[in-house]
């Protein structure tokens, strides 16, 4: 009898513990809770009740945060707010809106950033015509669907240096130019800070070298920026350049260098100069499996809000990095050492580049920073208060009375599990809840091309096209190459017509996929898409030096995908080339973005001319 009672007692312990183990498995972390999403207040006055609050530096449990007219009005355990609409914060964490300290923002970027809780980004090279608008927008308290930007306008770089290859006109600082006057011009344009580029490409390529700023120029530019009360942030890829920038008085680095892990001397120098570092581990992480683009695409908490274009850029990788598997390791090691020594690390992604996506990548960067030795709370501070402090932005980056109510509410606890930042419940900008439509809920408007359509005959005295947004030179410079091209209208077209388009240049070795040529952009907005599914054939006249050339179709959700290619030869006499579009494997004709005529390897000079370019359909 006695042993029977003991047996029952013993079995009940085993049973209850087994049930406990099974029950734990049955309640996985709350990834799906956010699916429907709570009803959020319509106005800019509300209170979040009972949330874990990360205020930019510290964590407060079970805390209320009252927002009134778009600003934080009170924080406490029992905030009195009669009649104010409440948001349930239990089991959730409220954080300041995230700050991405390194982006290149254009197109949809600010909208995409905000969708993922990035309420402010620091743009370190971009369109300088918008600086006044950016400032006006960020000072307002209106409802908005876009993240704010602090921006450098265009970066300071040498003639032909890094930053000049993107097709946007960039003023450059040549040897002997007046650095102070140059910086004054940038600041007068409205730059919030000054970005310098020190990049000769030697960390990424054994053959190609880019012109870059000299140490004396760096020193002069930094001094000029400081005279105007602006911070100077320097792009470097090499530790020696980072040393030079620190000694020149730079405030921060736009990347961690990748040619070697940080040595003790640099750690000491960075500490002594109070240098901050925006490591941008995101661009080095491709293929590492954690925090990189592919892992973000695979994350169910992010995937539904990624546009097709974002998915494509996240899955791409920085082309030059494939050759250097040690870069991500060295970058992590450097961040680990710098952080351990007390050097300020800020979260930035370099979004706008292959392998990244605006907004989403910051969540990966946070994970990478934790892998590099920051605690989750330190990583969150690096994406909020630290950035605000180091960039001198005083009304954001913290949850404190009087600050702008740029807020993110997530399920779970990112202060212990950093990946919980992805389980976004709500984003507020200027106190207004941001609509977070899933990708696919808004579609790009696309023009449909007629079945048969003439693109260009070059007979009216200009290198124009019948529709779309014209002809543009295209080279491998965007991928780090040095090939060149120029184009001109020439007399004596095919079949006795008045003119043709001549394209000539030189293919330079040293790039994985060298190319140079001319691209026709068929959509009304450059890089936009047209629907060419009614077309079956590309027909054109060609004449040239006898080389083999390629027609490259850029298509799909972005311009960054691999082009679909088909070869043709340009002989000495005008010849008609007919290429069936079905032969371009992988082309997405529903979203055709560019038709390029280009030379590729082998290296050397090339010259060809095209005329009477048209698309034909099966039906007349």
């Amino acid at each position, binding site marked *: 009898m006695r042993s029977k009672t003991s047996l029952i007692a013993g079995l009940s*312990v085993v049973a209850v513990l087994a049930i406990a183990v099974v029950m734990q498995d049955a309640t996985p972390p709350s990834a799906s809770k956010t699916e429907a999403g709570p009803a959020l207040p319509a106005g800019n006055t509300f209170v979040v009740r009972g949330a874990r609050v990360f205020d930019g530096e510290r964590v407060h*449990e079970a805390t209320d945060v009252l927002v009134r007219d778009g600003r934080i009005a009170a924080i406490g355990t029992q905030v009195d707010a009669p009649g104010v609409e409440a948001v349930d914060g239990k089991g959730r964490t409220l954080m300041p809106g995230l700050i991405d300290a390194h982006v290149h923002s254009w197109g949809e970027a600010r909208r995409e950033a905000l969708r993922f809780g990035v309420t402010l980004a620091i743009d370190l090279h971009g369109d300088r015509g918008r600086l006044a608008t950016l400032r006006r927008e960020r000072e307002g308290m209106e409802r908005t669907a876009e993240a704010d930007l602090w921006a450098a306008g265009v970066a300071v770089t040498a003639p032909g240096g890094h930053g000049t290859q993107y097709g946007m006109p960039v003023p450059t600082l040549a040897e002997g130019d007046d650095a102070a006057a140059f910086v004054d011009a940038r600041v007068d344009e409205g730059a919030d800070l000054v970005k310098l580029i020190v990049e000769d490409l030697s960390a990424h390529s054994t053959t190609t070298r880019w012109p870059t700023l000299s140490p004396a120029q760096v020193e002069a530019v930094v001094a000029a920026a400081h005279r105007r009360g602006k911070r100077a942030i320097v792009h470097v890829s090499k530790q020696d350049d980072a040393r030079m920038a620190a000694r020149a008085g730079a405030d921060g680095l736009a990347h961690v260098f990748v040619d070697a892990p940080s040595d003790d001397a640099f750690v000491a120098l960075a500490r002594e100069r109070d240098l901050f570092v925006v490591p941008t581990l995101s661009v080095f992480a491709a293929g590492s499996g954690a925090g990189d683009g592919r892992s973000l695409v695979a994350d169910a908490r992010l995937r539904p809000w990624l546009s097709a274009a974002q998915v494509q850029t996240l899955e791409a990788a920085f082309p030059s990095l494939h050759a250097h598997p040690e870069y991500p390791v060295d970058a992590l090691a450097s961040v680990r050492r710098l952080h351990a020594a007390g050097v300020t690390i800020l979260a930035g992604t370099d979004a706008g580049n292959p392998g990244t996506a605006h907004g989403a990548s910051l969540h990966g960067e946070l994970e990478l920073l934790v892998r590099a030795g920051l605690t989750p709370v330190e990583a969150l501070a690096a994406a909020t208060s630290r950035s605000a402090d180091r960039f001198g932005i005083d009304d954001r980056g913290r949850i404190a009375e009087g600050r702008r109510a740029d807020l993110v509410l997530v399920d779970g606890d990112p202060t*212990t599990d950093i990946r919980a930042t992805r389980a976004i419940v709500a984003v507020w900008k200027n106190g207004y809840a941001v609509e977070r439509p899933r990708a696919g809920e808004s579609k790009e408007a696309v023009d449909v091309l007629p079945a048969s359509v003439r693109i260009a005959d070059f007979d009216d005295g200009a290198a124009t096209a019948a529709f779309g947004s014209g002809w543009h030179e295209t080279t491998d410079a965007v991928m780090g190459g040095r090939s060149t091209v120029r184009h001109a209208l020439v007399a004596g077209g095919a079949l006795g017509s008045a003119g043709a388009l001549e394209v000539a240049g030189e293919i330079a070795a040293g790039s994985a996929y060298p190319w140079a040529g001319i691209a026709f952009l068929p959509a009304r907005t450059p890089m936009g898409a047209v629907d060419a599914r009614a077309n079956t054939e590309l027909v054109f006249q060609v004449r040239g030096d006898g080389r083999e050339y390629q027609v490259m179709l850029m298509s799909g959700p972005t311009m960054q995908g691999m082009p679909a290619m088909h070869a043709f030869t340009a002989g000495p006499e005008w010849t008609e080339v007919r290429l069936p579009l079905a032969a371009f494997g992988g082309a997405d004709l529903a979203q055709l973005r560019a038709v390029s005529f280009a030379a590729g390897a082998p290296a050397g000079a090339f010259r060809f001319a095209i005329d009477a370019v048209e698309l034909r359909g099966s039906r007349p």
Partner: protein
Amino acid sequence: MNATTFDAGFRLRPYLLEAKYEFLGLLRTPSYVLPALLFPSLFYVLFGVLLGGGRGGGEAARYLLATYGVFGIMGSALFGFGVTMALERERGLLVFKRALPVPPGAVLVAKMVMAMLFAAIISMMLAVLAASLGGVRLAPLQWAGLFLVNVLGTLPFCAIGLWIGVHVGGQASPAIVNLIYLPMAFLSGLWMPLSILPAIFTKLAPVWPSFHLSQIALRIVGRDAGGSLAMHFGVLAVVTVAFFVMARRRLADVG
């Protein structure tokens, strides 16, 4: 003085005396007092304050306040019951006490009160350290809740300790208790969060009663893993009753 209160006083007296001598006995056993009272505080200052306190907004100080509390009271209960019971049994004290005019439950009640008293002391010491050195800020109700969890949380471990004490000999008992106590603390995430250990540890953590108590304590400071509170209480209740029943049976058999 009427008959009822006299009666009650008379009945309580042996329990109080038993508890008093248990307390004096333990206090005069430095091999119990020092580890039981000092280790949790020492570890907390080392790992929660010195190594983890300045960094990360006090997250370590807050997490470890909850878990070292559980760690500490678990030790006081397991040792207070497991080791003393084994020793007293071996020395024949229990048999001797049966001959005394003492209610049979008084020994157990005394030991239980002692474990709770030590738990209260440990809890207070950790709270003072956390608030002063660790910079942990909690609402009054949270402090009170942690204290309550620590004091009442001794019950399941008293039962487990008792069960060990009636099974093993006096010499072996400290080793056996340590063999259970230390791995269980580690595997329940009392020394470091389970999230930084391989996933299998998280999966198996609910096997350990200390995991369930620590989850309740962590829930109070908002750092739990999000399991069901009812389940944690249920497991602890079943463990307490079952081990107590098994120990009583054994005690009745072997004395």
